[in-house]
């Protein structure tokens, strides 16, 4: 990172987060999952609160009640829709297309809720994206991308990041992502190159048995085992590191081309190798301790990411101004929660 940039700092520690996490877990189980809404608030608050830049931190303001109600509505709607389709199968023709149109709307609601419930230095974030552009970005572009056999995938990636970032504001100050396509293509090619290189090496080693398994109708069980080991080998050595490499390069590209009004330029110099090392050792630590080291792993990752992210400040951070906010419901947020959609800004 350049000298002039001010770094983010993560001040949380594993011990403290372990205590909060394990109590969250226990209460969630004891209440049959109901408490998990409050647990989510505590988790977000912990990670937001502990992320600092220039002595100022982030905060999360949603309440457990809001999140629980949102979740109940989504689960209720899901059950009702299933029952309707079950009772009147023909209604699926109308209901399913309606749902597909509703998804971009829900995504936008989720992003709006999350933004408005987050603040930095007492100023709330906001999200102003419309369902119409979400429809184009999340439904039309992916179809077009598929039509080009995913050769334009980096364009889709950039469009999604642009939609997310350019519609976010800190108070009245907008974020702008203005990035060329090149780094997105570089990320894709780097990931592909890794995957192909690993595939080629494994193929050279296992060539004979691959051919034997593929041409033999009744392969020897041992050969099948080698083949399956090869499959997992490709998955763990080829696919997963390629995915981490891609994520790291895209993250750097996105941050390094994002500016917050006031001349604040974001910086990120995450290294794929370090990220992969953290991911692998985290995985081992968590697996070997029946999950008890998960809080440690999460803190470690947050600390690394914050340590390699910064802002070249264009002026004082005192100048942000918030706006009076209208109420937002947690409905979309709950939907995103349940469907596992990740649309948040990477902090």
């Amino acid at each position, binding site marked *: 990172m350049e000298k002039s940039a001010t770094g983010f700092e993560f001040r949380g520690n594993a011990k*403290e*987060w*372990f*205590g*909060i996490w*394990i*109590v969250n*877990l*226990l209460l*969630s*189980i004891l209440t049959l999952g109901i408490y*998990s809404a409050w647990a*989510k608030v505590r*988790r977000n*608050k*912990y990670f937001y*609160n*502990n992320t600092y830049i220039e002595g100022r931190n982030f*905060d999360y303001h949603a309440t457990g009640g809001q999140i629980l109600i949102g979740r109940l509505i989504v689960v209720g709607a899901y*059950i009702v829709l*299933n*029952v309707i*389709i*079950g*009772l009147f199968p023909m209604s699926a023709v109308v209901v399913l297309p309606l749902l597909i149109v509703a998804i971009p709307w829900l995504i936008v609601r989720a992003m709006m809720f999350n933004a408005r419930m987050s603040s*930095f*230095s*007492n*100023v709330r974030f906001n999200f102003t994206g419309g369902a119409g552009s979400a429809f184009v970005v999340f439904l039309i572009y992916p179809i077009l991308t598929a039509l080009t056999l995913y050769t334009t995938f980096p364009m889709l990636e950039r469009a999604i990041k642009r939609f997310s970032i350019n519609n976010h504001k800190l*108070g009245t100050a907008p974020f702008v992502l203005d990035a060329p396509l090149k780094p997105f293509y570089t990320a894709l090619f780097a990931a592909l190159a890794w995957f192909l290189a690993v595939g080629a090496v494994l193929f050279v080693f296992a060539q004979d048995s691959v051919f034997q398994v593929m041409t033999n109708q*009744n*392969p020897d*069980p041992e050969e099948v*085992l080698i083949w*399956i080991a090869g499959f997992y080998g490709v*998955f763990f050595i080829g696919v*997963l590191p390629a*995915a*981490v490499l891609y*994520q790291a390069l895209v993250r750097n590209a996105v941050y390094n081309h994002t500016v917050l009004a006031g001349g604040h330029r974001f910086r990120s110099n995450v290294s794929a190798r370090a*990220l*992969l090392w953290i*991911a692998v050792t*985290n*995985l081992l630590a968590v*697996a070997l301790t*029946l999950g*008890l080291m*998960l809080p440690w*792993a*999460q803190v470690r990752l947050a600390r690394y990411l914050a340590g390699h992210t910064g802002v070249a400040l264009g002026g004082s*951070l*005192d*100048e*942000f*101004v*918030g706006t009076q906010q209208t109420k937002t419901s947690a409905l979309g947020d709950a939907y995103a*929660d*349940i469907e*596992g959609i990740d649309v948040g800004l990477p902090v």
Partner: protein
Amino acid sequence: MAAGCRLNTAVEGRAYAPLSSRIYAARLACRCSAAPEETGLLAGCQAEVLDSEGRVLAAAALTELRIDARLGRQPRRLEFPDGTVFETEDHAAIEALTGPVRGSWLHSMEQFRPRLIAVAAAALAGIWLVWRYGLDMLVAAAVMITPAVAVQQIDSGMVQTIDYALAEPTGLSKQEQARVTEVFETLLAHAGEPPKGAGFQLLFRDMPGMGPNALALPGGTVVMTDAFVEQFPDEDVLAGVLGHEIGHVAEQHGLKQLYRSIGLYVVVAFLAGETGPLMEDVLLEGNVLLSLRYGRGHEASADSYGVRLADRAGYDPEGLKRFFAEVQGQAGEPPEWLSSHPNHATRLEAIDGHIRALGR
């Protein structure tokens, strides 16, 4: 200790004006119209935020402040009704101000003390209970509320898919079909009531590449391949395998597997939260392996059901065994933990056990 103003010295901290990111060095002062020790009420107490020159930035009754619950070592935030925010690291002072609240109990539980070991043990035990019993209960409840029409819908949808992608119309003669269907009907006559929403029917399809095979759909549709009837004309074998498939329907294995994989996904998502890269891929992969294991349990259970049903209906319970003994040598098998079905050797051994249990 009663809460309220007992602040002779003000609390040091920082303040933000409403809707502004500007930070002021500030302090919080508090005074009450009556001594709180006597009234025990906060109502008469007034809180004020003062800047370094002593100017009042905001003031409000203590009861009107919004004070977030304590979380780790994070600064406490006090929000005044006008939006002014005061924040401080002086936790003791704020605790004295608010007295014990719901959040303070939570905070004390979360402390990294020996007591936390008990919490962790309870949480692990809880996870084990959810995993061992909770998921099954969830699945049973979901199966119970699934409307009958929905189950039938799954069947007709899947038959359409099979016909479109995998199968050709059957090439079996009418007599052959009738012969197998009679075995099927005889078995059904000895099986109990079908579960709610299920109606049994037997379909024949020519499925190239699937070999001698049969499959059951949740609504009671059983599909048998032509290759099966051609390779195993023996009625005892047919009875064993059809009994196995009827077992899948009677014990609602299809729906249970569907709901279990959804349930596991939701439970993991709610309990683990964000796990970071790599770990979530591995969790998903582990989920697949676990659901395979669940499926193997169902296969074994259907084997047992099939053997018992065939016996009750007057067929030789050895039929199912003959089938597996025959196909055992025909194709290589993946290791058991990677397969949706138990290995043939395991199954043969278990079937022997079921037959012995019949008391012959």
